[in-house]
């Protein structure tokens, strides 16, 4: 066979079962060349094993399901942060656009968004705190997973983001409110690039966290992470629902604040993009929670 018939299997699986399975394939074929169908069946089996090993689908072990479910929720939170950035930009100084007697409902909605985001952020930080001792212990034993390259990438992205933040802040200082909110095309493009860089940086740190935690989390710590992931999902739902509420309130009370015209609605492009991304994040987090729940079955 010119190409490895087990190339679709995960590496860890090949390390454990690869040699004996190759021997089985040789015995099974008895000198005949494998047919395309035979190779296709092996490829399908390998891909299934790969998906199963990831914990994202199939009859994975309870530990793999908890890990995959918790990781999915973490990435969903990163997506929610991206949408949250768009929300925060849209809501900048919104109270000043409202008459005093119209502020209660939008302010309440905004405060719920902030409270939900804070609660989710605290749970994410708690998750990191739960994961650190196991990783530190593994590092002391010399058994920490090889995440050096991932850490370097995330750190480089963080430094770039910090530099970008300082540059953008300095630039914004010389612009008026209208220029900062879309009138200056170059600034808007730079702001979008900065926001994307922020999302990429968060995603890179999420990757570092999940790779570091996978091999070093104890079963007990993983259960705690799973519970925190359920809490983070609940916080994501609160943030998303309250964001929709805020948008609806502002569209009815101060439409000009959202789009600069009197005809704004909750179906404005930015609202659809932001709330749509939040909805996707909730769907992803919900799938993660379902994987965690399936570990108990």
């Amino acid at each position, binding site marked *: 066979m010119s190409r490895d018939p087990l190339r679709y299997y995960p590496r860890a*699986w090949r390390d454990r*079962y690869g*040699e*004996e*399975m*190759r*021997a*089985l*394939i040789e*015995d*099974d*074929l008895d000198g*005949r060349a*494998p*047919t395309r*169908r*035979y190779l296709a*069946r*092996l490829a*399908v*089996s*390998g891909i*299934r*094993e790969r998906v199963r090993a990831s914990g994202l689908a199939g*009859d994975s*072990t309870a530990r793999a399901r908890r890990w995959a479910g918790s990781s999915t929720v973490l990435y969903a939170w990163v997506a929610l942060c991206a949408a949250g950035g768009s929300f925060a930009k849209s809501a900048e100084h919104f109270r000043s656009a409202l008459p005093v007697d119209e502020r209660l409902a939008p302010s309440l909605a905004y405060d719920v968004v902030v409270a939900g985001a804070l609660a989710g952020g605290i749970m994410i930080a708690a998750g990191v705190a739960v994961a650190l001792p196991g990783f530190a212990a593994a590092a002391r034993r010399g058994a920490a997973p090889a995440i050096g390259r991932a850490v370097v990438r995330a750190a480089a992205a963080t430094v770039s983001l910090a530099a970008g933040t300082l540059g953008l802040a300095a630039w914004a200082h010389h612009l008026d409110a209208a220029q900062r909110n879309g009138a200056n095309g170059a600034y808007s493009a730079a702001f979008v690039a900065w926001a994307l860089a922020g999302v990429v940086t968060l995603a890179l740190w999420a990757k570092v966290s999940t790779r570091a935690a996978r091999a070093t989390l104890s079963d007990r710590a993983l259960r705690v992470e799973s519970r925190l992931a359920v809490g983070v999902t609940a916080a994501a739902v609160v943030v998303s629902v309250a964001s929709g509420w805020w948008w609806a309130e502002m569209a009815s009370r101060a439409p000009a604040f959202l789009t600069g015209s009197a005809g704004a609605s909750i179906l404005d492009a930015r609202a659809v993009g932001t709330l749509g991304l939040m909805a996707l994040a909730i769907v992803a987090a919900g799938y993660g929670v379902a994987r965690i729940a399936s570990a108990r079955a």
Partner: protein
Amino acid sequence: MRASDSNYYVSRSKVSGVTRAPRSSYGHDPSVLILTSLSSGPRHGHALAQDIESFAGVRLGPGTLYGAITRLEELGLIEALEPSDRRRPYQITAAGRDALASALARLRRVVDEGTARLAAATAGAS
């Protein structure tokens, strides 16, 4: 592999726990077949496939066979022995024997019930 072989290759195992009933049809759950084969002694992959073909009339493909072996080993129902010339034999564990007994009892209940109902239906029709 003969083209006709594909007609009786069985699907991949879905049994993932000792408390879960086999889900594949006609009692051809690869996990049950493997445990049945190993209940009479250790075997490596090819010997397992040949033995299963001889007593069950189904041929497990390498992907199906090793998918089931992976799960059974994770569940502690079988254990690996030292390999010999790249071929690693497996043997059933005590937990594996219990799981097999439970699976066979479930299958037996279905067989008994199906047989009784079929007999009643046949008697009613004649």
